[in-house]
């Protein structure tokens, strides 16, 4: 393919790159004219995106030349959070960081320093390496509220997070569980909608009639947080009616008989009571998914945010497995990125000792997140436990944080606690693109670049699993440096430079080694396609202790947990806490995304903000009328933790007992003013963001409320 192309229509030069406005990584063409990026498009030659690009990616140019971009390093000169800054050089910034981190370490020990990062942007694997090579505990990426549970469940049960890789080509049934791919996984949505146009049936599990649900053949409107019960109910039907793949189960499943006993506890009539999904729909969905082959599952983070996220995500892996839909075309496939990129070595996990794992905050309670049992390359401290350590000094003090690309003050549950904890620090560094709420309370702010401002090599499980894609640096804004460069330069000054790489390109070369080419060569090729292969388990079995699908898991038993998936009622629900539900009668589910924003980002880009100018909370008209709330009215939402403001959007697409509050809005609109972060899912420590209680009232005209 042509990676650099003269565009005669516009008089521009179009470069092939990889959009990382989210973690998906979509092929893009960036048009440059007179040294300036003038247009961003999808890449029609891409086998993954088929030429499309989502609203966020298309609008990326708005980030590059935004008047509010951070252009140089700054240090705080007023009180913390006062907003008084002084421009400094990169050298001064690095010197200050090294001096302060070293002094905190001297005073409080190595665990006095904590690293934090946010969602994947292509470089997050390198940040993990930085944290591991530095020997410091880290929060992120994604952690217990996103990514960790479903990846962990896939690795435990199948040896690979195959449910992240639905193979839509040839799929005849699409089970879309707690995700609206048209908003959050546009490249997946392209193939998903193609499959649907070819006649594939679609089952959507979602409490809200979202865009994808509106296209479904079967829409299962469940009570938020009851996903595991629904999955186990479907499994009950499939096993009872013997419509599972017996040949596969006999040959490739470990512990099926024990599981058979377990699902007896979940007959559809009981599951209907738990989930509010009518019994006949549970049966219909189970039959449709099990009997329409091949069938794929599409999942995302909704199932990472309830009272037992490992059970939920394992149930779905088992559902795909016993119906014979693992590693077949049209099902969910096991990817092979490690064979093509140096992922394992990249993570620097080998730099960690047993002591690191034992001392990590949350390791005892949540071993799959923070302990040695963690199967991810980025074992992560548990956030509630971290804030506690900052606030109380127990089990040991955490006094300095280096935060790279994470707006913690908006993104993490229980904003008041997060704010208090971070405000109490001795030293706080934030690397970001804009002066975010989190950057505002830092001591040092470092300016980094967006996806157009760095190179990269993209290959990851979630979408581009069948190819390695080129990302190119095409713009330079102010004194901004790439994330790779900042980490390399910091590592060198902190004394572990030899564990990192001398330059961005040297690191990309290292990643590409198994593919036998260099980054320079990839710049000419644009992408490397990896042929799809199926039923890889037939050679060496599954990558699990039994070499089979691990349905019953002795590893969980050894750690003192239930070896089989089960449903656990949300800690805060009308069922588990009817007393509290009298005061806070509505179930609040948060985290549903809109197509134009990425987490807390992009609300400063006009072309996107004009599409969703305000935070809209979805409420059933019946509930709204009982509360005297009209469409578009200003409302106050309260939980036992706090209160927030929003506007009401009335829709019959939500149950009258539930309200849906979109997340990641700043200030008074921040849902994390309401969310609890203490009652977490066992094993992995997920906050139950999809299923907490709230109450709503109209905000009075005088604004007092």
């Amino acid at each position, binding site marked *: 393919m042509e990676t650099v192309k003269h565009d005669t229509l516009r008089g521009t030069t179009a470069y092939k790159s990889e959009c990382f406005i989210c973690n998906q990584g979509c092929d893009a063409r960036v048009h440059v004219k007179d040294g300036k990026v003038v247009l961003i498009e999808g890449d029609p030659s891409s086998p993954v995106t088929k030429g499309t*690009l989502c609203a966020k990616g298309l609008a990326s*140019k708005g980030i590059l030349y935004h008047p509010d971009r951070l252009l140089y390093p700054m240090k705080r000169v007023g009180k913390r959070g006062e907003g008084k800054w002084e421009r400094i050089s990169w050298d001064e910034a690095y010197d200050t960081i090294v001096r302060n981190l070293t002094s905190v370490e001297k005073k409080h020990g190595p665990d006095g320093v904590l690293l934090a990062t946010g969602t994947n942007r292509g470089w997050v694997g390198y940040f993990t390496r930085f944290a591991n090579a530095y020997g410091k505990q880290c929060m992120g990426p994604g952690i217990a509220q996103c990514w960790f549970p479903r990846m962990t469940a896939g690795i435990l049960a199948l040896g690979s997070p195959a449910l992240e890789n639905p193979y839509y080509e040839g799929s005849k049934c699409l089970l879309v569980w707690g995700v609206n791919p048209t908003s959050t996984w546009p490249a997946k*949505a392209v193939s998903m909608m193609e499959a649907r146009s070819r006649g594939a049936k679609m089952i959507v599990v979602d409490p809200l009639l979202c*865009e994808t649900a509106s*296209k479904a053949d079967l829409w299962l409107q469940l009570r938020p947080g009851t996903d595991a019960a629904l999955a186990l109910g479907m499994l009950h039907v499939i096993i009872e009616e013997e419509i599972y793949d017996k040949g596969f189960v006999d040959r490739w499943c470990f512990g099926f008989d024990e599981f058979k006993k377990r699902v007896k506890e979940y007959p559809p009539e009981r599951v209907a009571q738990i989930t509010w999904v009518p019994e006949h729909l549970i049966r219909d969905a189970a039959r449709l998914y099990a009997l329409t082959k091949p069938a794929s599952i599409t999942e995302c983070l909704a199932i990472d945010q309830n009272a037992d996220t490992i059970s939920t995500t394992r149930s779905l892996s088992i559902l795909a497995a016993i119906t014979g839909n693992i590693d077949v075309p049209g099902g969910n496939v096991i990817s092979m990125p490690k064979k093509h990129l140096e992922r394992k070595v990249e993570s620097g996990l080998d730099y960690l000792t047993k002591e690191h794992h034992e001392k990590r905050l949350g390791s005892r309670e949540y071993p799959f997140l923070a302990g040695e049992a963690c199967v991810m390359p980025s074992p992560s401290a548990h956030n509630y436990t971290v804030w506690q350590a900052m606030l109380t000094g127990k089990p040991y003090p955490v006094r300095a944080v280096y935060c790279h690309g994470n707006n913690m003050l908006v993104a993490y549950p229980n904003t008041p606690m997060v704010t208090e904890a971070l405000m109490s620090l001795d030293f706080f560094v934030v690397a970001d693109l804009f002066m975010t709420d989190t950057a505002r309370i830092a001591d040092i702010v470092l300016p980094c670049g967006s996806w157009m401002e760095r190179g990269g090599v993209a290959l990851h499980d979630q979408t581009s699993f069948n190819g390695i894609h080129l990302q190119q640096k095409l713009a330079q804004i102010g004194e901004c440096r790439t994330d790779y460069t900042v980490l390399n330069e910091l590592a060198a000054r902190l004394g572990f430079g030899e564990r990192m790489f001398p330059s961005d390109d040297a690191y990309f070369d290292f990643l590409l080694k198994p593919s036998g080419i260099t980054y320079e060569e990839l710049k000419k090729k644009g992408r490397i396609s990896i042929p799809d292969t199926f039923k890889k388990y037939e050679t060496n079995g599954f990558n699990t202790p039994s070499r089979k699908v691990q349905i019953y898991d002795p590893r969980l038993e050894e750690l003192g947990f239930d070896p089989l998936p089960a449903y656990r009622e949300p800690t805060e629900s009308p069922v588990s806490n009817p007393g509290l539900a009298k005061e806070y009668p509505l179930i609040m589910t948060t985290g549903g995304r809109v*197509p*134009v924003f990425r987490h807390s980002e992009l609300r400063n880009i*006009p072309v996107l903000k*004009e599409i969703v100018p305000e935070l809209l909370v979805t409420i059933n008209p019946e509930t709204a009328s009982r509360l005297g709330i009209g469409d578009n009215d200003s409302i106050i939402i309260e939980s036992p933790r706090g209160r927030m403001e929003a506007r009401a959007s009335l829709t019959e697409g939500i149950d009258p007992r539930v309200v849906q509050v979109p997340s990641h809005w700043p200030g008074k609109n921040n849902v994390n003013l309401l969310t609890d972060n203490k009652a977490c899912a066992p094993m992995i420590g997920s906050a139950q963001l999809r299923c907490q209680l709230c109450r709503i009232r109209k905000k009075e005209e005088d604004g007092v409320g």
Partner: protein
Amino acid sequence: MDSILLIDLDNCVRCHACEVACREEHNLAFEGGPRWCRIMTVGPRQAAGELQMDFIPVMCFHCDEPACAEFCPVGAISKGEDGVVLVDEDVCTGCRLCVYGCPHGVMAYNEATRTAGHCDLCAVRRSGGLEPSCVQHCIGGALQWVTPEELATITRGEHTLMLGRTCYVSSKWNLQHDV
């Protein structure tokens, strides 16, 4: 006849890629910039025994008898031989009569250029043989750029509503037969 913009309502997923692609392509992505393409939401409402919600992309239809052209006092708007309605920016005085006159609400005033404008089916892209940007970037496959022959095969003349250079199609909605 040249290609037609086919809008398959079965496949619109309200991702707004069309709207942003359009504004980026035509240098309209500034604050308060004109929106030549929008997605309307219908519902959710009870229909045919279930809760239904639909999304309708709306942009200039390139009407057979464009009201905007009739309203224009200086003759800046004309329908070309290819059926595409165009505004001549050099002639347009920015009086906005066309914005008020358009019965579909798809003419938009541009504060930056002080002229009126609307979907030109990506004239620049078409001159290079490319399909309109909204079509390339449509995530759900709702927008397609098809020849009249392809249109006839795809729709078989059923459930379609032909308006100028655009044609709506839906398996659910009982649209007027007009192809």
